């Protein structure tokens, strides 16, 4: 038996990004620890670099913290939902194993991280051109521009990652309907878990009013959805 080449091979990296569904489906069929390791490495590097660019504006130490936190969020989301995703897929009509579902999710996260990593020099350049983060930063157009740039880049990476995952699911299940169902279920689970992880891992861009820290005080004392519900309640209370 010949060993599967790892993603460190540039051609395999191109295959991953260009979304050659048949090849990617073959990869998930032949579970290879080296390839999984390579996907994890791409996630760590790509999201790490992007995280560093994100936190750099506040402080170099914040860059280091976010460079660690962002890959952690992606990896923990993939691992935390691995079992659930593997159970949901057959229930919704896609007969894949635990390993296959984990490999597919890691693959899509690796695509997202690779895109984020490629855009990190551009974001770092934008931060380099921004004035230092002062107390009135949130009212400046620069803050708006940098925040919007993050939204655009992350949304683009997310859309591409999910589009590639959808193509892979179609290839695995031979049905658009089943693939759509599984993708929506996986997305819902990942969004639910991922948003809470991101909430815990605040601050990401950072605030000039708050000290640079890995986790905010009370990071484990509230949750994202609780905060959203409070905001909604306050909105309607003010309306009255």
């Amino acid at each position, binding site marked *: 038996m010949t060993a599967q080449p790892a993603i460190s091979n540039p051609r395999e990296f191109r295959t991953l990004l*260009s979304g050659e569904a048949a090849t990617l489906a073959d990869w998930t069929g032949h579970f290879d620890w080296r390839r999984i390791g390579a996907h994890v490495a791409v996630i760590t590097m790509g999201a790490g670099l992007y995280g560093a660019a994100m936190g750099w504006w506040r402080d170099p130490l914040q860059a280091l913290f976010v460079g660690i936190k962002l890959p952690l969020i992606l990896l923990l989301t993939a691992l935390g939902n691995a079992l659930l995703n593997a159970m949901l897929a057959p229930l919704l009509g896609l007969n894949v194993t635990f390993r296959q579902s984990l490999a597919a999710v890691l693959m899509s996260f690796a695509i997202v991280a690779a*895109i984020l990593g490629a855009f990190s020099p551009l974001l770092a350049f934008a931060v380099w*051109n*921004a*004035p230092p983060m002062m107390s009135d930063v949130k009212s400046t157009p*620069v803050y708006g521009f940098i925040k919007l740039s993050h939204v655009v880049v992350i949304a683009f990476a997310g859309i591409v990652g999910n589009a590639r995952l959808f193509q892979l699911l179609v290839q695995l299940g031979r049905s658009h309907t089943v693939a759509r169902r599984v993708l929506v279920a996986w997305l819902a689970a990942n969004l639910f878990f991922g948003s809470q992880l991101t909430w815990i891992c605040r601050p990401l861009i950072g605030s000039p009013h708050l000290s640079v820290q890995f986790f905010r005080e009370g990071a484990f004392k509230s949750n994202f959805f609780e905060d959203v519900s409070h905001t909604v309640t306050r909105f309607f209370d003010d309306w009255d």
Partner: protein
Amino acid sequence: MPPPLGDDPADREPVLNPITAVEAILRQPRRVMYQLRQPGAGRLISSMLFVTVACSLVYGVIVGSFSGGLQWWAAPVKISVGLLICALICLPSLYIFGCLSGAQVRVREMVGMVLGLLMLMTILLIGFAPVAWLFSQSTEQIVWMGVLHLLFFAVATGFGLRFLDAAFSHAQARSAVGLRTWVIIFVLVMLQMSTALRPLLGRSDDFLPTKKRFFLNHWGECIKDAERADRNRVND
């Protein structure tokens, strides 16, 4: 659809030194594109890098001649380094856009394409250099000179991007949307770089600016300063 690279025997002639590289990119760009795909492309890439640095330094001297003093050496260094940093910052996103659109391009070839873009740009800037020098010596209006240099850069960039587009068309990409998006990013980064490394024209005690600005704000300030200076001159 352009004929495949290498079909014409002229495409297969090796590019051995910087002078041949300049000649090839102006007269036979397909030859450069073909040679970038061959095993010994490192030599061509080095030649292209050399020409880019040399031409940008020469054009930088012309830019610096407007103010003289520190700018004689600061402007060439800033233009040369600035262009290379722009390429370095934008290269990863070009590679990702290429891969996402299914282009069959290796990293080395991508580096060569971007260097081709820079080389063609800087060669054309050398063509504009005598005109730029004449105006540098015969006007004191900084805004006017700024607009003139921007115009020359715009024309040179346009031709450089045309080369990149032609090189990409041989990469079997499914769509050109990624490349078009990247072009916008590249142009914006170049414009911002010109502000981040200011002053390229005009005098300053500092090599680099102490205040960060967005390029549109900077241009606005320059125009206001020029208007103020004009008004003062009229009042005097």
